[in-house]
C-alpha cells in the first residue's frame, strides 16, 4: 500500500492492524516469559505455547503483507521460520532464543508505533536488518547442527537447561495443526470473557457484512457498501485468526479476497455473488454458533465454498493469487496465506471431509443444494438458535459517558438526601407514613442504580498484573539478580479509573523492590536466604477497600539511610530520632527523595515513589509500608472499592458532623462507668465482654468543642481495622445514609484521619473519617501511648507494662 494514496478506509485498516498487533504482542509476551520459566521444568516447553506464538507472527505477517508493510513482513517472516523449527521439534529453545524473540516483540512494538503515527514502517531498515540477521543466524545454526544439543547452544543458554520440545508426531511429519491446535488455544490463553467478546463482536461484524451486502444488492455500484462489507469481513477474519478458528478464518479470508478483487478492479458485484456471500455468512454464523456452544467451529464443505469463491475471483479475472485451473491446490495459496506442508495436510483433511459428508459432491452447486436442503429441514431450529446468540449483546460506550453517569448518580444520591431530610417536610406536623415509604422506594432504586453503574466500570486487574511479568524479567536481568514474580488474586476487579492509575505506581514499586530491595544472589546466599528473590503482587478485597500488595523478601528499608538522606536533601529538619518507623518510611514518598547510592537507569532518580503516592491519593487511596529489616518490605496500596459512594454513619460531635464508614463499625453502645478504667494519663479503657479496648474522643482527635465531655453523655462506636478495635466517643448518632465521596481540595492536601468529605442533605459539608488513619493517629498520639501498647497486643491489658 503506497503511502501516497491513503484514504480513510486504508487508514482505518492500518489502525485496526496496529491495534490487533499490539494486542497480540501483549498476549504473547507473558507466554514467552512463561516459556522461559517453563524450560526449568522437566516436561520441557509446552508445544501449545509455541503454537500460540507462532500464530502471532504468522497473522502479523499475513496482515502486514497485505498492507504492504514490508519491514514488519520480513521480520515476522524470519521469526516465523525460526519458530517453525522449534515447533517441528528440530531444535530446542534456549534462553538466547527467547531473548531474541522478546527483542523481536519489542521491535514489532516500535514498528507498530511507527505505523500508527506515520502510516509506514519505513525508516527502521537498519535495525530490521540486524534483527533479521540474528534471527537468520539462529535459523541456520539450527539447520546446520541438525540436532539440538550443540556445544554452542549449551554456552548460549546461560541459566536454562534446554529441553527437547516433545513433538507429538514423527519429526518429519508436520506438527499437528487444525483442530488440535484450535482447541488447545482455546484452553490456554483465551479467557471466557474474551470468548464472549469474540462471539459478540463477530456476530456484529457478520450482521454488518450482511446489511452491507443487502444494500449492495440494491445499489451494486455503491462503493461505500462494498467497502463496508469488505471491512467487516476483514475484521471478522482477523478475529477468527486470533482465536484460532481456522475454518472460519479461511472462508472469511476468501470472501474478503473476492470483495477486494471487486473493489480494486472497480467491478460491480453480481446478484449471484451476493447470494453466495450471504450463504457464506450463514455458514460463518453457524460456525459462530458452534463456538458459543463450546464446540470447535467447523464449516462443512469448506472446500466447496472456497472453490466457488475462487471461481468468482477467476471471473473477475485480474490477478487472482494463483491460476484457476487447479482450483484445489491453489486453494491453499489464497486461503491460508503461505502454502506449506501443514496447509497441504489441512487440505487433505478438508478434501476427505468433503467426500465424507457429501459423497460425490465435488461440484459446488451440489454442495449448495445440499446445504439449502439442510436449511429447509432445520430452518425453525436455526432461527431459534440465532436469537439465542444475539441475546448476549454488548455495547461499546465512551468512558466519558460512564464517568458522567457516575457523577449524575452521585448528584442524585445527594439530591435524594436533600429531599428525604428536607426540613420543610420534617418540620410539618403531619403523618409521614406514605412519604417515608416513597423515600424508601427511591432509596432502593438509587442503590440499585449505583450497584449497576459500579459493576459496569469494574475490570479485573489481570492485564495490569501480567504486564509486570515482563518488567520483572527485564529488570532482574539488568540488575543481575534472580527474581521470581508471584501473582495472587489477579481476578480481583477494580474500577476502570483504578486500572488506569495503578500501572505507574506498580511499576515504580516493583522497580524499587528490584533495585533497592532484593539483594544480589551472593548477598542473599550469604544472608542464608534463597538465592532467588521473590516479589509478590497480590490483590484482595478488604472491607470497603481493594488492597494491592507489593511484597518482596529483600533486605527491607534502612531507617538510618533514609533519615540521613532526608536530612541531606533538606526534607527533614533535626535528627528525626523521634520519628516512628512508619513516619520514616513515609519519607521515601516525598518528592526528590532517593536513597539509591548510584543512579541506575531503572530507578534512583527519586521521582518514582512520589508518583506512587500521588497516583494513589488521586484515587483516594493510601499507601502503607511495613518492613522488617532483612525480611523484606510490603507496600500496601489501599484503594476504595467504589470511588464514589459508600454507606456511612453520620455522627455528631459538638457542632460538627462526621461520617464513619459503616463497614468499619462493629457496634455502638452507651458506655457504663463501671466498665471503664482510667489510666494515670487519662487514657480510658472500656471492658466490652472481656475485651479491653481503648477509647478515643473524636472531639480530641479533631479538636472541636463537644457537649459530651463526660463519657456517660456520649455514645461509643466500636470500630475495627485489620483485626484491631478502637472505641470512638461521639455526642450523637444522627443516622445511616449513603455518602457520595468528594475529594478535599489539593490546597488542603492529605489530612490524618480524614479520607474525604461529602455534602449532607442540608447542604453542609461533612468530613469522612479514615478509620485506618485514626488507628495510626492513636498509635502516634503521645497522650494515648498506653493505648498504643494495648493496640499492639490486640486489646489485651498487661499490667506488667504499666
Amino acid at each position, binding site marked *: 500500500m503506497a503511502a501516497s494514496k491513503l484514504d480513510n478506509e486504508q487508514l482505518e485498516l492500518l489502525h485496526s492492524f496496529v491495534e490487533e498487533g499490539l494486542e497480540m504482542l501483549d498476549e504473547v509476551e507473558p507466554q514467552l516469559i512463561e516459556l522461559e520459566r517453563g524450560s526449568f521444568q522437566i516436561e520441557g516447553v509446552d508445544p501449545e505455547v509455541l503454537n500460540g506464538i507462532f500464530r502471532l507472527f504468522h497473522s502479523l505477517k499475513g496482515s502486514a503483507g497485505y498492507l504492504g508493510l514490508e519491514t514488519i513482513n520480513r521480520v515476522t517472516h524470519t521469526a516465523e521460520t525460526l519458530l517453525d523449527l522449534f515447533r517441528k521439534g528440530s531444535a530446542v529453545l534456549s534462553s538466547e532464543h527467547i531473548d531474541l524473540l522478546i527483542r523481536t516483540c519489542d521491535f514489532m512494538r516500535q514498528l507498530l508505533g511507527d505505523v500508527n503515527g506515520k502510516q509506514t514502517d519505513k525508516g527502521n531498515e537498519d535495525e530490521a536488518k540486524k534483527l533479521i540477521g540474528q534471527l537468520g543466524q539462529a535459523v541456520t545454526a539450527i539447520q546446520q547442527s541438525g540436532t539440538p544439543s550443540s556445544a554452542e547452544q549449551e554456552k548460549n543458554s546461560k541459566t536454562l537447561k534446554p529441553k527437547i520440545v516433545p513433538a507429538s508426531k514423527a519429526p518429519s511429519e508436520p506438527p499437528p495443526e487444525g483442530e488440535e491446535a484450535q482447541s488447545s488455544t482455546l484452553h490456554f490463553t483465551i479467557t471466557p470473557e474474551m470468548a464472549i467478546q469474540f462471539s459478540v463482536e463477530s456476530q456484529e461484524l457478520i450482521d454488518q457484512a450482511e446489511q452491507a451486502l443487502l444494500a449492495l444488492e440494491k445499489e451494486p455500484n455503491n462503493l461505500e457498501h462494498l467497502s463496508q462489507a469488505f471491512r467487516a469481513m476483514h475484521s471478522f477474519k482477523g478475529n477468527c485468526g486470533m482465536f484460532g478458528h481456522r475454518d472460519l478464518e479461511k472462508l472469511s479470508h476468501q470472501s474478503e479476497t473476492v470483495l477486494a478483487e471487486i473493489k480494486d478492479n472497480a467491478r460491480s458485484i453480481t446478484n449471484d455473488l451476493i447470494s453466495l456471500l450471504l450463504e457464506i455468512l450463514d455458514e460463518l454464523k453457524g460456525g459462530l454458533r458452534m463456538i458459543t456452544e463450546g464446540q470447535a467451529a467447523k464449516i462443512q464443505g469448506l472446500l466447496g465454498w472456497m472453490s466457488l469463491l475462487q471461481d468468482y475471483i477467476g471471473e473477475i479475472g485480474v490477478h487472482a493469487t494463483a491460476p484457476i485451473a487447479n482450483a484445489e491446490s491453489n486453494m491453499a495459496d489464497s486461503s491460508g496465506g503461505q502454502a506449506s506442508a501443514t496447509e497441504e495436510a489441512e487440505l487433505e483433511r478438508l478434501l476427505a471431509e468433503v467426500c465424507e459428508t457429501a459423497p460425490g459432491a465435488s461440484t459446488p452447486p451440489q454442495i449448495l443444494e445440499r446445504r439449502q436442503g439442510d436449511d429447509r429441514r432445520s430452518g425453525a431450529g436455526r432461527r431459534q438458535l440465532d436469537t439465542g446468540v444475539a441475546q448476549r449483546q454488548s455495547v461499546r460506550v465512551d468512558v466519558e459517558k460512564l464517568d458522567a453517569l457516575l457523577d449524575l448518580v452521585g448528584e442524585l444520591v445527594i439530591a435524594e438526601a436533600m429531599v428525604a431530610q428536607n426540613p420543610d417536610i420534617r418540620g410539618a406536623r403531619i403523618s409521614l407514613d406514605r412519604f417515608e415509604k416513597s423515600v424508601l422506594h427511591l432509596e432502593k432504586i438509587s442503590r440499585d442504580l449505583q450497584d449497576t453503574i459500579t459493576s459496569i466500570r469494574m475490570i479485573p486487574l489481570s492485564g495490569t498484573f501480567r504486564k509486570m511479568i515482563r518488567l520483572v524479567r527485564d529488570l532482574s536481568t539488568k540488575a543481575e539478580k534472580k527474581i521470581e514474580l508471584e501473582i495472587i488474586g489477579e481476578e480481583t476487579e477494580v474500577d476502570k479509573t483504578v486500572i488506569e492509575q495503578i500501572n505507574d505506581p506498580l511499576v515504580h514499586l516493583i522497580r524499587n523492590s528490584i533495585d533497592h530491595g532484593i539483594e544480589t544472589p551472593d548477598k542473599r546466599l550469604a544472608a542464608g536466604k534463597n538465592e532467588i528473590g521473590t516479589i509478590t503482587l497480590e490483590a484482595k478485597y478488604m472491607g470497603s477497600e481493594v488492597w494491592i500488595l507489593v511484597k518482596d523478601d529483600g533486605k527491607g528499608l534502612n531507617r538510618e539511610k533514609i533519615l540521613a538522606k532526608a536530612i541531606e536533601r533538606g526534607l527533614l529538619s533535626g535528627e528525626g530520632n523521634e520519628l516512628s518507623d512508619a513516619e520514616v518510611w513515609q519519607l521515601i514518598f516525598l518528592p526528590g527523595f532517593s536513597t539509591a547510592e548510584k543512579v541506575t537507569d531503572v530507578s534512583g532518580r527519586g521521582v518514582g515513589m512520589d508518583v506512587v503516592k500521588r497516583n494513589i491519593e488521586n484515587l483516594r487511596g493510601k499507601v502503607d509500608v511495613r518492613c522488617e529489616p532483612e525480611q523484606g518490605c510490603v507496600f500496601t496500596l489501599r484503594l476504595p472499592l467504589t470511588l464514589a459512594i459508600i454507606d456511612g454513619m453520620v455522627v455528631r460531635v459538638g457542632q460538627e458532623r462526621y461520617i464513619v464508614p459503616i463497614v468499619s463499625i462493629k457496634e455502638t453502645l452507651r458506655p457504663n462507668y463501671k466498665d471503664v478504667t482510667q489510666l494515670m494519663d487519662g487514657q480510658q479503657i472500656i471492658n466490652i465482654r472481656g475485651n479491653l479496648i481503648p477509647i478515643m474522643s473524636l472531639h480530641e482527635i479533631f479538636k472541636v468543642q463537644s457537649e459530651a465531655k463526660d463519657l456517660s453523655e456520649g455514645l461509643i462506636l466500636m470500630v475495627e481495622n485489620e483485626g484491631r478495635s478502637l472505641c470512638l466517643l461521639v455526642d450523637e448518632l444522627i443516622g445511616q445514609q449513603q455518602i457520595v465521596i*468528594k475529594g478535599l481540595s489539593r490546597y488542603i492536601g492529605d489530612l490524618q484521619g480524614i479520607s474525604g468529605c461529602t455534602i449532607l442533605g442540608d447542604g453542609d459539608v461533612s468530613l469522612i473519617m479514615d478509620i485506618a488513619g485514626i488507628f495510626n493517629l492513636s498509635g502516634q498520639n503521645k497522650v494515648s501511648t498506653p493505648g498504643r501498647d494495648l493496640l499492639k497486643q490486640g486489646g489485651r491489658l498487661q499490667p506488667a507494662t504499666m
Partner: protein
Amino acid sequence: MTTTDKLNEDLLEMQEDTQEGKHLTFALGKEEYGIEIKNVTEIIGIQNITDLPDMPNYVKGVINLRGKVIPVMDVRLRFGLGERAYDERTCIIVVTIRNSAVGLIVDSVSEVVDIAAGQIEPPPLVRGGQSSRFVSGLGHVDESVKILLSISDLLDDSELDQELETARGEA
C-alpha cells in the same frame, strides 16, 4: 447583597481581553485591597463552614459551592490582622488558580476598578514584615491607595505545607 450581585454580573460579562488591569477591591478593616480580576470566579455571601482538623488558623475549613467542596481562607487571619466576627457584609471571594478553587473570606467587597500598570508602584520595603510578601504593588485610584495582592503568593502551597508541618508538629 446588591453589591455582590452587581459585581457577579460584571464578572460574568467580562471577557478575557477586557480583564487586563481590572482589579476587584475589598476591605479588611479600614484598608482597601485589590486582586486581579482574572483569578476571580465569583463572590458569595458567608456560608456554613465545616472545620478541618490540623490546619493553620487562617484555613477556616471547607464549604459547599453548588456541589463542589472548596477550602476557605480567612484573609484577616492570613495577614495576622486579628479575628472579626462574620456579619452580613462578610463575603467569600472565590478565586481559581491552577485549576483549584479557594474561597477568600473578606470583611466586604467594594467594586471593580481599572488600575493601569502606570498607576501601580512597587511595594516599599520598610518593615519587611511577614505579610508584606503578599503585596504585589500599591495602586493609585483617585486619591486613595489600594494594596494589591498576589493571589498565587497568598495561596502558596509550599508555605501551607510548612505551616501544616508546624501545626501538626505542635499537635
